[in-house]
């Protein structure tokens, strides 16, 4: 037995001696930035996660940038650009004073190499390729001019080109490494260089002292952060703990309940950042009873006290959502705010109109045998089974595990119960199960939302033939708004198209919007000038400043 103890001790000490040495650290302030999940791949041209962009946004520059305040497109690697009158080609005039971290000069050829890589089928791009829309090819006009050609006009292009997924990588580095290994050796032109990436453990950036070509809103601070180590805090409760214990100085996606506590700590700061795109929402199935009835769908929204949900689940760190786009998305129309305010009385009278005129022994509304005079029978699609009398008002919701959606569904259940709506909650494990449930058609509500500054995100959900058309709604008018919204180059025209689309979606009550997404970032008080880009997720690390003990604060 003694031998056993000694062996255990020896093993422990041996392991202690085995742990690796720290990488060579450059001088200057070093911080730890906590990411909320560990992406399986870190190549922005190939992989799709938002997490990868948090560090890599500062490793790469993009052809254009979006000013985070005004939302305007401003020069990046391209000093200016022009669109052909037919909207089928864009010409970019590139900066001539830029070089990559490995010394390779930046030019039109570098852009061409990157476009080749992103569009090649063998690259297997999961996101970047689709952000280029109907691209047909490019022409290198001269060393610093490149023209991108499209088969159809594609208005979201500039927004796409401003994102890290279309960041420009060093052609020399891309030639040296293959699609599987480049992610460990990434080289861009941005304000930080990638020093090392140890999968599952850390990704380290260090400041690029040569950086002189940043966009207008990159402002060098007095005390820049020299080295940033990104680590992966996948378990939500550990995130606030890590900030408090000093293991991390910046942390994304703090839980709302922890954010409350954090806001009261003088050593910590909270930065709630609105994320553009779709709000937390439930898509309503227009092909299944009882949500096939327009009246019932409207009643469900009237019956929902969204402010109470935001208070209880999100600790008030969120605006209530009224439409299919969050307030910080391009072409959001405030007109949606007039639709369906909380009004349980209105909900009840609508349900009465829809034929739910009696209550069963459980307190659930039912359609009585032989509808009463003057009431509208539920609008049925031709494929639906005829509704027999006596059917209770039962609504099934498919609920994914993320975004505190299960908690929201529970509150919905209790709110709706009081006016006689029986909400059945079916929680699923992940995206695959969500999709399977959607394909079965056996649901009334299903929750999914995507993010993005450009409202083109709506096309994935509301076009008749969209892969995620889970409302089952098919409408020529809405299809036209959404397809023209993506085709029309003129922002004013786009604005009117998307405003009409948002109104149409709400008039038809295709979704139950809940709240705009807010990313709750926490930092220690020593980190200042904390700013994020127009997509909301990605920090402008170049601008971040750090107070060191010598600064007298």
């Amino acid at each position, binding site marked *: 037995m003694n031998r056993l103890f000694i062996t255990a001790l020896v093993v422990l000490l041996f392991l202690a001696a085995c742990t690796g040495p720290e990488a060579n650290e450059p001088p200057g302030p070093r911080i730890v930035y906590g990411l909320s999940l560990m992406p399986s791949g870190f190549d922005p041209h190939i992989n799709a996660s938002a997490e990868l962009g948090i560090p890599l946004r500062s490793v790469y520059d993009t052809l254009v940038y979006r000013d985070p305040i005004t939302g305007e497109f401003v020069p990046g690697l391209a000093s200016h650009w022009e669109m052909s009158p037919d909207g089928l080609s864009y010409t970019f005039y590139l900066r001539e004073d830029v070089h990559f971290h490995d010394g390779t000069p930046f030019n039109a050829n570098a852009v061409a190499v990157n476009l080749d890589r992103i569009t090649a089928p063998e690259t297997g791009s999961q*996101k970047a390729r689709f952000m280029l829309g109907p691209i047909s090819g490019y022409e290198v006009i001269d060393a610093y001019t490149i023209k991108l050609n499209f088969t159809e006009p594609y208005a979201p292009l500039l927004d796409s080109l401003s994102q890290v997924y279309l960041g420009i990588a060093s052609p020399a580095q891309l030639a040296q490494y293959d699609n599987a290994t480049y992610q460990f050796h990434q080289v861009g032109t941005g304000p930080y260089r990638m020093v090392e990436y140890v999968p599952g453990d850390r990704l380290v950036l260090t400041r690029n002292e040569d950086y002189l070509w940043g966009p207008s809103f990159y402002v060098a601070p007095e005390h820049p952060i020299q080295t940033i180590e990104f680590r992966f805090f996948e378990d939500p409760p550990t995130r606030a703990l890590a900030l408090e214990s000093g293991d991390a100085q910046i942390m994304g996606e703090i839980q709302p309940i922890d954010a409350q506590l954090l806001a009261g700590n003088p050593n910590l700061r909270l930065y709630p950042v609105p994320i553009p795109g779709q709000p937390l929402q439930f898509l309503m199935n227009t092909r299944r009873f009882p949500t096939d009835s327009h009246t019932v769908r409207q009643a469900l929204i009237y019956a929902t006290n969204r402010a109470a949900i935001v208070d209880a689940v999100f600790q008030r760190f969120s605006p209530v959502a009224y439409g299919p786009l969050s307030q910080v998305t391009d072409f959001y129309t405030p007109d949606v705010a007039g639709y369906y305010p909380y009004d349980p009385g209105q909900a009840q009278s609508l349900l009465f109109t829809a034929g739910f005129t009696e209550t069963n022994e459980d307190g659930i509304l039912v359609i009585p045998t032989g509808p009463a005079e003057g009431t509208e029978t539920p609008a049925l699609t031709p494929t639906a089974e005829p509704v027999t009398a006596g059917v209770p008002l039962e609504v099934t919701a498919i609920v994914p595990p993320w975004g505190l959606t299960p908690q929201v569904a529970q509150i919905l259940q209790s709110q709706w119960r009081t006016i006689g709506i029986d909400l059945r909650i079916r929680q699923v494990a992940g995206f695959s199960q969500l999709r399977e449930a959607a394909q079965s058609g056996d649901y009334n509500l299903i929750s999914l939302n995507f993010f993005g500054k450009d409202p083109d995100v709506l096309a994935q959900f509301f076009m008749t033939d969209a892969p995620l058309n889970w409302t089952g709604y098919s409408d020529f008018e809405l299809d036209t708004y959404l397809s023209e919204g993506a085709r029309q180059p003129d922002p004013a025209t786009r604005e009117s198209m998307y405003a009409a689309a948002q109104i149409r979606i709400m008039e038809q009550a295709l979704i139950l919007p809940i709240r705009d997404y807010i990313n709750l970032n926490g930092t220690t008080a020593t980190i200042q000038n904390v700013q994020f880009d127009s997509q909301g997720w990605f920090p402008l690390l170049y601008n971040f400043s750090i107070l060191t003990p010598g600064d007298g604060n």
Partner: protein
Amino acid sequence: MLRFMRQRLLSTLLTIWATVTLAFFALRVIPGDAITNQLLQGGATEAEIAAHRAALNLDSPLWNQYLGYLGGLLQGDLGRSLLSRQPVNVLIAEQFGATIALALSALGTALLLGLGLGTIEALFWPRRVGRLANALSIVALSTPIYWTGTLAIYFFSTALGILPATGSGDLRHLILPAAVLGFHASGGIARITRASLRHVLEAGFVRTAYAKGLSKWQVLHRHVLRAGLPPVLAVIALQAGFLLGGTVITEILFVRRGIGQLLQSAVLEQDYPVVQGIVVLSAIIYSLVNALADVLYGALDPRVNTDLQA
């Protein structure tokens, strides 16, 4: 002895094959896969998704994929991640050291604590010390790692600030996770140690030893422990499986690199080849440790005749 080992090896291989097969098909019963999920969310059309799946051979018949996988496995090739395109061998090798470091140091802690608590319980029951040890081992058995781990982080990192809560740098980062995981695993060892020792303490030869005038410690050292420990060995081998599972939770809680974190991401994203690779690895480790324990058991306890068993 050799025949026994040969047979043990054969059954180990069978176990591994069965595990691999089960994992392969169980993963595919669940709808969806990593690449479809990512592409749908990236904005791809159904046709584009189909093309990607074909390129990754995900559209060929299941038995075909299965045979291909087994063939690769025999040559030591675990395939490539669907998402990062890294060879699974490499992904696992990168994380393996960190997990083994955690598992072994947790095992060390579990042995120290488990054997210690178990012995104290056996010797001092029903005195206060014995009851205390008993209570501790019950707490160890019945509290989840999430709870003890969060408490440990709160006390040692947030409140006292003496140990780092998260990360996988040096030995200091190993202390809390190893202690928490080891504490949890020590419960089972303590219970078996106590039961086994109490059984031996009541045996005739112990009374004889006392009768011939040996002191309590001499009896304990020369007779009781020697006779009482072999059953504990079997439990320790079983704990190896438990530790492999426990490392997953521990690594996530303490933000340590390792197989557990890799597995969690791969499961959530449905990256089949990575999950399969980790299942294969776990099956191999678990089977080998238990085979080894069987052989050792025979060597330690002459009553277990491994030749006869063969």
